[in-house]
């Protein structure tokens, strides 16, 4: 009983962290069709922002949930203005340019913070379930992921801004004809996407030792999740994060964490081979 509860929490946590990792990319890639290979580095910067802010004496939750998204969002804004806006619609070029950006960020982080592991301790203590110890922070991550998905759904479906953003992504020319500036909307959407990446990086920072190259650990997972998800933003994110999270944890418990990671990647290859349009290209069509 205790064991099954622990496993259930671990699976939920794996799914939640995949959702967190991929949310920013889902906005930037899923909506804007910008392949942001610097996504992992945005998360890394979010982590460093949190650690720096905590070091300056800011409350850890404010640092994670407010400061990191804002700072990374601003960095994203600068990047969008300087580089990405020249490359909209050029898929491969965006991919290469953002790869270059990711290297630049790694280099900058190495110069500023040094090539050493830094970290902060988890702010929530663990507790015991029967014979097992569960990290309380895992629950925090699950809660953040759930709130995040609900918030994204609410903004995209319920607000005028979400409607305009979705409309612009579908037909930028029509949006322009109706008096909205696609340029501004793209900028704002990219800001939101980057802020989400920053949030994810900040929230996950206490769990990993942060090095300037930490981003690489996230980027592949984020990409696989978003691409396997397919065209629907949130339904795709949830369905692929769930399938991969479950596969990962099942193999982790059955064999070892490394095999769990490998199983996730193999599952992704098989899934993409069977459904090149992603999960929501076949199921849940037309959902958001």
């Amino acid at each position, binding site marked *: 009983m205790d064991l099954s509860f622990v496993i259930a929490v671990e699976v939920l946590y794996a799914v939640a962290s995949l959702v967190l990792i991929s949310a920013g990319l889902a906005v930037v890639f899923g909506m804007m069709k910008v392949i942001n290979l610097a996504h992992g580095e945005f998360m890394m910067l979010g982590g460093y922002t949190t650690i720096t802010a905590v070091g300056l004496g800011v409350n850890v939750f404010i640092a994670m949930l407010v400061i990191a998204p804002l700072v990374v969002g601003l960095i994203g804004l600068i990047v969008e203005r300087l*580089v990405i806006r020249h490359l909209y619609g050029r898929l491969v070029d965006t991919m290469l340019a953002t790869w270059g950006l990711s290297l630049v960020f790694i280099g*900058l982080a190495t110069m500023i913070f040094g090539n050493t592991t830094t970290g902060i301790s988890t702010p929530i203590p663990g507790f015991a379930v029967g014979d097992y110890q569960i990290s309380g922070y895992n629950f925090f991550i699950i809660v953040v992921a759930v709130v995040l998905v609900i918030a994204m759904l609410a903004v995209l479906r319920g607000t005028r801004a979400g409607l305009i953003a979705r409309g612009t992504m579908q037909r930028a020319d029509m949006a322009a004809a109706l008096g909205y500036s696609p340029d501004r909307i793209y900028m704002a959407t990219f800001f939101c996407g980057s802020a989400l990446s920053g949030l994810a990086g900040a929230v996950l920072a206490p769990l990993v030792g942060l090095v300037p190259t930490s981003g690489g650990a996230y980027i592949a997972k984020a990409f696989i999740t978003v691409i396997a998800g397919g065209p629907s933003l949130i339904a795709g994110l949830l369905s692929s994060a769930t399938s991969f999270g479950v596969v990962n944890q099942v193999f982790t418990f059955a064999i070892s964490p490394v095999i769990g990671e490998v199983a996730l990647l193999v599952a992704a*290859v098989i899934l*993409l081979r069977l459904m*090149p349009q992603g999960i929501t290209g076949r199921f849940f069509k037309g959902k958001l």
Partner: protein
Amino acid sequence: MERSLGKDITATLIVSALLIWLLPMMVATYTLTVLVIYGMLGLSLGLIWGFGGILCFGQAAFFGLGAYTYAIAAINFGESTVPMLLAVLVPLIFAAVLGALMFYGRLTDVYLGVITLVVTLILFKFVNSTAGPQYVIGNARLGGYNGIPGFQTLNVPGNPDAYIWGDPYFYFCAVTLVIVFLLVTWLLRSSFGRVAIGIRENETRMALMGYDVAARKTVLFAIGAAIAGLAGALFANWGEIVTPGLFSLGQSAEIIIWCIVGGLGTRLGPILGAAGLAYLKFMLGQQSLIDNTLITGLILVLFVLFLPKGLVPAVAAPWKASFGRARRRPHARQRRKARHG
């Protein structure tokens, strides 16, 4: 494609002979050897990306696979001739299977990129985790993140005690590169190469003309992997150790950057890009003021923004316009399309 094959071969041989003769006077052969190997690696991606339109994010996987195959086989056989052949064959077969999986599934651009990236990651993670003594192939321990040191390096075929190292090894690598370059030249001039370029330009049209697009892409992909595997084996001989870093995403990124900077759709561009950037990195490695990765990244961003065609086409176009004979230039739109596969 303008000059005749004979002229092309003669020019290649003369220029490369001159370079092989002159370059060791300026740069140490130890450094030159690795530049030549990187050149070959660049050429392998330049072939499948620049001429086949297949953007592979995992060229490093084949490079690493070649290196590991060589190291493992060399330990088991105690000589280097069979391992060299295996180091070409294993990536070839691996890429043929992977390519068939992807191309017969009609996966294109982004999905192709992600799958090759993921396969590289799988190999990296797997090899990284093989530190334990239970991971043994024959007599060779895989060694995890420590890599495999101390294998038999290149020797004269049939005589395992006559090692080829130092200056002769540089000449060996350089001549191998020239041979590979000539083979690629020949391949691109053959009907197979022309069809491959046709597929890059317009896949649907080639399929409607009756060519088996998936089979041809698979073969081209496998050839590129074989060249990368050969480069990997040469690298293993040069470094005398193989580590999981060969499979890393950073390595894959570098190969792509070489191709972009050198110029896609040229044979020379990726080689020059690889050798040039690797040398730049080597020079930058001797200073500690600015981080190396930062500069690599900046170069990539600037090239994508301002010189997306790469150095060789950018230099060659004005040269041809002012000195070459007047001939019809390919339409600008087609050339741009070529880059986006």
